[in-house]
């Protein structure tokens, strides 16, 4: 059942891709969307359920105000208009992951609509138009039992845990993104990445793709290429929707794969089937899901058990005032302030150290020193111990204090590593650790001079070379002196002493 594929470059010679992304964000509210059940991850099955989220007769939903607040803040951060009045709707379908036999969602009255996000790809900006962001609830989790592979096909029966059913979701839907051409896969990835950063900055979700708290559905279609300068409006082709793509890399790969697959179908003169596709992380391909039902098959109607949501303009403005700086703009600002190269900035963000570097700079370090510690010593420690970089027990203030000790000449970079060892072990402040571990650089000229004399005496050949003017050979003597001083000497001063004695 493997599909024929057209090489990516050939796709672009004949077709223009149109993208659409639907991203589900699981909110980090303490309770569910319509009931007071907890939302904590990893509880025993069916211990965070009640008559409302189980859809038992007579139960009544009540909207979680905090979830509405988060929805409005997400909408505002995406430059959306916020509805003055909107309702929930029932999306009817029969599937055991929703015990009510409908999902409470929003239909033609989303809480936020008509927004945009500017996405940067390799220095080029693409404006992604946001069609809508609406509130809904998550579904339960099914485990398929029996069958060869544990997948749904061939399963004998399924077991359902409803702990997740009813957790608030915000679904963010883009308008078709056209004109990205060869960059379509990267634009898709960059959009989801920037959206995730925005959600993190808003603090409304755990935003962990690997745990499913952000899930992307990728819509893709191809249209015959319109030559440059043509006034003919491109017509969108038939789209497929690839569900549950759960990493940034996979978003990019799924777009690439579907472009190649669609092109092969169209090249053969056949029609793309409008359907749901399943993404396979292991093989990097999509396979056919079900044929997409028409929207009317869900028989949406206004939810009679919930009253409309009408966010007052005053409240919306209050929430607008709580918005954090846009992460993309913030990065550009910090990069300019710090004088980082693109690569240094990318590494800092990639290491999850942006805020830490920012705090360290605020505590008095130079940006380069802050970057050096967080991306060197501390990133290595985080990696070696499989710990988050902000959970090492070392604060931005500690790093700034260590660097201040280096700047003051009390310790050098090598001794600073011992200070960090002390910080990991919880031995106190950097100053206390320097004192307790005796790490201070020896500035006693007598002791230094004696160590230099000893090194010269032990390495007469090297000393002769330096006397002959081969200053580069001094490194070997510096090493010997540093060893003698157990690292507690200023290498620059040692060099000066060696050269003075051998000139």
């Amino acid at each position, binding site marked *: 059942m493997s599909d024929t594929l057209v090489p990516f470059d050939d796709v672009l010679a004949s077709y223009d891709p149109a993208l659409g992304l639907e991203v589900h964000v699981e909110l980090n509210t303490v309770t569910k969307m319509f009931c007071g059940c907890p939302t904590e991850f990893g509880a025993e099955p069916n211990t965070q359920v009640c008559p409302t989220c189980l859809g038992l007769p007579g139960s009544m939903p009540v909207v979680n105000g905090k979830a509405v607040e988060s929805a409005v803040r997400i909408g505002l951060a995406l430059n959306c208009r916020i509805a003055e009045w909107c309702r929930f709707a029932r999306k009817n379908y029969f599937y055991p992951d929703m015990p009510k036999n409908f999902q409470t969602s929003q239909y033609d009255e989303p809480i936020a609509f008509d927004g945009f996000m500017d996405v940067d790809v390799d220095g080029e900006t693409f404006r992604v138009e946001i069609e809508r962001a609406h509130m809904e609830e998550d579904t339960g989790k099914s485990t398929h039992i029996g069958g060869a592979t544990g997948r749904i096909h061939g399963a004998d029966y*399924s077991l359902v845990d409803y702990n997740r059913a009813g957790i608030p979701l915000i679904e963010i839907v883009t308008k078709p993104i056209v004109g990205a051409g060869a960059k379509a896969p990267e634009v898709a990835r960059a959009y989801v990445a920037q959206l995730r950063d925005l959600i993190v900055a808003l603090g409304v979700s755990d935003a962990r793709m690997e745990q499913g708290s952000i899930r992307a559905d990728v819509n893709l279609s191809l249209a015959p290429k319109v030559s440059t300068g043509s006034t003919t409006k491109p017509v969108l082709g038939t789209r497929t929707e690839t569900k549950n793509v759960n990493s940034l890399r996979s978003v990019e790969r799924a777009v690439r794969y579907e472009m190649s697959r669609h092109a092969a179908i169209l090249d053969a003169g056949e029609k793309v089937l409008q359907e749901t596709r399943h993404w396979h992380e292991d093989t990097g391909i999509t396979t056919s899901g079900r044929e997409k039902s028409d929207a009317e098959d869900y028989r949406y109607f206004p939810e009679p058990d919930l009253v409309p949501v009408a966010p007052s303009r005053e409240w919306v403005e209050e929430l607008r005032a709580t918005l954090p700086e846009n992460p993309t703009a913030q990065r550009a600002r910090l990069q300019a302030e710090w004088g980082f190269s693109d690569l240094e900035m990318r590494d800092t963000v990639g290491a999850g150290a942006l805020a830490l570097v920012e705090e360290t700079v605020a505590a008095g370090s130079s940006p380069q020193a802050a970057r050096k510690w967080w991306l060197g010593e501390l990133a290595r420690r985080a990696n070696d111990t499989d710990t988050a970089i902000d959970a090492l027990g070392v604060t931005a203030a500690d790093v700034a204090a260590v660097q201040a000790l280096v700047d003051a000449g009390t310790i050098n970079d090598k001794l600073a590593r011992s200070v960090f060892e002390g910080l990991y072990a919880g031995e106190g402040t950097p100053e206390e650790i320097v004192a307790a571990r005796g790490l201070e650089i020896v500035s006693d000229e007598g002791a230094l001079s004696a160590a230099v004399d000893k090194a010269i005496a032990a390495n007469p050949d090297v000393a002769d070379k330096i006397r002959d003017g081969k200053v580069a050979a001094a490194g070997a003597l510096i090493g010997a002196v540093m060893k003698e001083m157990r690292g507690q000497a200023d290498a620059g001063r040692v060099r000066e002493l060696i050269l003075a004695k051998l000139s």
Partner: protein
Amino acid sequence: MPEISRDEVAHLADLARIDLDDAELDHLAPQLAVILESVASIRGVAGDDVPPTSHPIPLTNVFREDVVTPSLTAEQALSGAPASEDGRFSVPRILGDEQ
């Protein structure tokens, strides 16, 4: 005048998981048409100034604090289930309808 075809009734029955045979479809389709017609007469009474009502009481913004209330135990939750296993609801295998 609203109309509902026999095919539409069959489609809706399928969506609602109601198994109707040919005789039942022949019987029900005209009845549904009559019901739709009766409801449609309300449309004639309501003027443009009367918005469609989805809730009888004109209330908005009824919100709950984001505070945990007690959940059921797994045993209680599963007490009405025809079948369960490992603390979870057991359901027949699902074909062709994956969401």
